[in-house]
């Protein structure tokens, strides 16, 4: 501890329980884990020194960005918490190469702000973008509404400097086309803080589109909205975003300060955006509107101007927040299913919700088949808590059975460990453990997350396992 104080300064090592309280949870509701202490380095050199000191002391640690993670990835159970939010420098923006180099604590939306003068933006846009950090985005391989067309974090990270848990500094980069080399950069993205700490990240910046058309289509059945989604994807038009909100979500949004003018009497709305150069944009928008109508849309309206568009989006981006107002807690779920199976799966989810007496609100990236069946509830009511958990478990198992996956963007963390063996039977989890062990042989970083340790053979056979 003295060593840590010397590295970062007294003010940046927190040990009092009142100070630790802030770091006891991330955005996964209902879980509190107290770190043994919190250390907040202010520079990359300090991070490296801290990691080396922890390595020398034989201590485990958890990296944390803004703590907006939804799978408990940044929970530190009696281990050291390494907060990175002070590293918020945008090191460089290169408008010609369309690249930016940033420290890990830079908030997602601030990077786009810095790129705006050059007509560029950082494309991955998680709904938490005004709070979450680039380091957290890289660790979770974060997505967002516009990832349908532009790709997720993985597709935008070019390089990173990483300090491995043993203190070694490595430079990772996506191999160039002419290079025959391992893509350890790709392996690092989405590693949920288990492979080391990203000290700086080089990301691609995307030109702002010349034109944007944002449409809101409303449907009298969820089934029709899901079919319209499939029809648009199958038609080969690639919208920038294709988001679905159901009746429960619309009601929550419209009753909140984020009211976006969504029709409250419909069963579902699709928020569809196409962007790109002006020529051809109206034709794509018209084709999408026609497909929605063919699938039974009652009305399709196009945002008149930028203000109108911002309002339509506000409802979507703040939907989690609006739901959060309905009850004391919000269980945010995340799963992906084949896009053609959306309609029957949504019907099954509704049935599961009814059976367990929980109120499922669907708001999700329909174009990718990335579901978010969320449930506002009171986690302090043991009965309700149990019902929510049973319903969530059934929904996860349904998504696995339908050929989907248990997370499209929020990660496994701690929350989804119980589903990993069902999703990856056989030797797959052991292979994942081996990949982790290459980065972190002593398992110092984010212990116990992502892959259940009993699935790792070398660890089971190691002396002392489980003792």
């Amino acid at each position, binding site marked *: 501890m003295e060593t840590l104080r010397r590295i970062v300064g007294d003010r940046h090592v927190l040990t009092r329980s009142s100070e630790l309280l802030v770091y006891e949870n991330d955005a996964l509701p209902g879980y509190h884990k107290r770190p043994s202490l919190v250390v907040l380095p202010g520079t990359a050199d300090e991070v490296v020194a801290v990691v080396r000191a922890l390595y020398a002391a034989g201590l485990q640690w958890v990296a944390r960005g803004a703590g907006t993670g939804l799978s408990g990835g940044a929970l530190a159970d009696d281990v050291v918490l390494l907060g990175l939010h002070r590293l918020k420098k945008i090191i460089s923006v290169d408008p010609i190469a369309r690249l930016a180099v940033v420290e890990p604590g830079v908030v997602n939306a601030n990077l786009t702000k810095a790129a705006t003068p050059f007509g560029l933006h950082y494309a991955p846009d998680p709904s938490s973008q005004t709070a979450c950090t680039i380091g957290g985005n890289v660790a979770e391989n974060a997505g967002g509404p516009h990832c349908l067309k532009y790709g997720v974090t993985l597709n935008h990270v070019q390089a990173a400097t990483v300090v491995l848990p043993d203190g070694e500094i490595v430079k990772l980069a996506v191999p160039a086309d002419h290079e025959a080399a391992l893509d350890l950069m790709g392996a690092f993205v989405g590693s949920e803080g288990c492979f080391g700490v990203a000290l700086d990240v080089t990301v691609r910046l995307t030109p702002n589109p010349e034109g944007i058309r944002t449409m809101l289509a409303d449907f009298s059945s969820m089934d029709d909205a899901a079919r319209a989604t499939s029809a648009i994807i199958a038609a080969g038009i690639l919208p920038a975003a294709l988001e679905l909100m159901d009746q429960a979500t619309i009601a929550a949004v419209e009753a909140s300060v984020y009211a976006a003018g969504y029709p409250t009497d419909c069963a579902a709305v699709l928020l569809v955006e196409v962007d790109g150069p002006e020529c051809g944009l109206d034709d794509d928008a018209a084709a999408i509107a026609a497909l929605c109508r063919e699938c039974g849309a009652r009305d399709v309206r196009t945002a008149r101007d930028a203000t109108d568009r911002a309002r339509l989006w506000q409802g979507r981006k703040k939907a989690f927040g609006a739901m959060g107002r309905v009850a004391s807690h919000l269980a945010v779920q995340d799963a992906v299913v084949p896009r053609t199976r959306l309609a029957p799966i949504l019907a099954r989810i509704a049935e599961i919700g009814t059976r367990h007496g929980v109120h499922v609100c669907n708001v999700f990236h329909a174009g990718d088949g990335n579901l978010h069946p969320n449930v506002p509830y009171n986690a302090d009511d043991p009965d309700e808590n149990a019902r929510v958990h049973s319903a969530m478990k059934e929904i996860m198992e349904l998504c696995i059975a339908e050929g989907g996956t248990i997370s499209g963007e929020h990660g496994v963390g701690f929350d989804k460990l119980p589903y990993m063996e069902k999703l*990856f039977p056989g030797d797959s989890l052991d292979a994942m453990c081996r990949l982790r062990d290459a980065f972190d042989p002593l398992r110092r970083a984010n212990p116990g997350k992502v892959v259940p340790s009993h699935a790792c053979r070398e660890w089971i056979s190691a002396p002392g396992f489980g003792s």
Partner: protein
Amino acid sequence: MDLGAGVRVMSTVLTPSTTDELASIVRESVAAHRSLAVRGVGSWSLALARASAAATPLSMAKMSGIVEYVPGDLTLTARAGTTLVEIEAATRANGQWCPLLPWGTDDGTLGATFATATTGPFRAALGAPRDIAIGVEFVDGTGAIARGGGRVVKNVAGFDLTRLMVGSWGTLGVITEISMRLRALPAVDSTLVVQCDVEDPAVLARIDAFRRGPYVPLACECIGAAHAMTLGLGEARLLVRVGGNAAFVAESVRRLGELGTVEAHAPELWAHYRERDPYRRHFTDAYATPLAARVKRKFDPHGILNPNVLGEVTS
């Protein structure tokens, strides 16, 4: 088989037809201290030439066929030995295409294209193999069968074995199955040849501006004079493909017209163009760093998979 004293007999090619069979071959190879040189259909001499001569050839040719293709999902899963020609035919019948279109020919296999992370002229617009792959099944150097990712287009469950396998040149595992995203064919797909002086820096700057958008083409390639001749393009040296709806393509053509005379060609031109890889692949000593060496030891502890191809473990 090495009989010593420089006498060598061509060993037979191993040709498993199932993943289990392949896993047994790998396990037997570990026991017999035999190394394996993995190949698709053997169309790419470069990769084969790098594998150690002492290794026994292992052909994936029999492990072929599309496992699942749901056009509405724009996803496809196929076994590693499936040729790109087969994928192309199946997808085209549904108005879709396989976005790989790598340098070389489509006689090669899906497994080799992903294992070597081979890109092509459409990479900027359609993505590289690392962007296109959504899931992978492989047999590692101990004979264990593992899967990463899945069959859906977005997936963050577990550590990313897919990105680990793509571009690892068969040195960490033998890819047996790949799931990938597809693209819908654009409503209008135009192959254009533009007469302009690609040696003039001012023209090059304008070509670059066109490439950067907003009317981003699928491909925009300046080619050498000799290459243009072999492609039957005469003096023309700018080769462009634009795809989108009619209005988008019309505006793209108009803008290209400002560079020089635009001539339409058949899309087959690209198949010829792709035959000549403009890159000489640069092989790094991939396993020279401690981190990479640890990865290698975790997945191929006996060093039997494609020895030498990405260099040896040196640290």
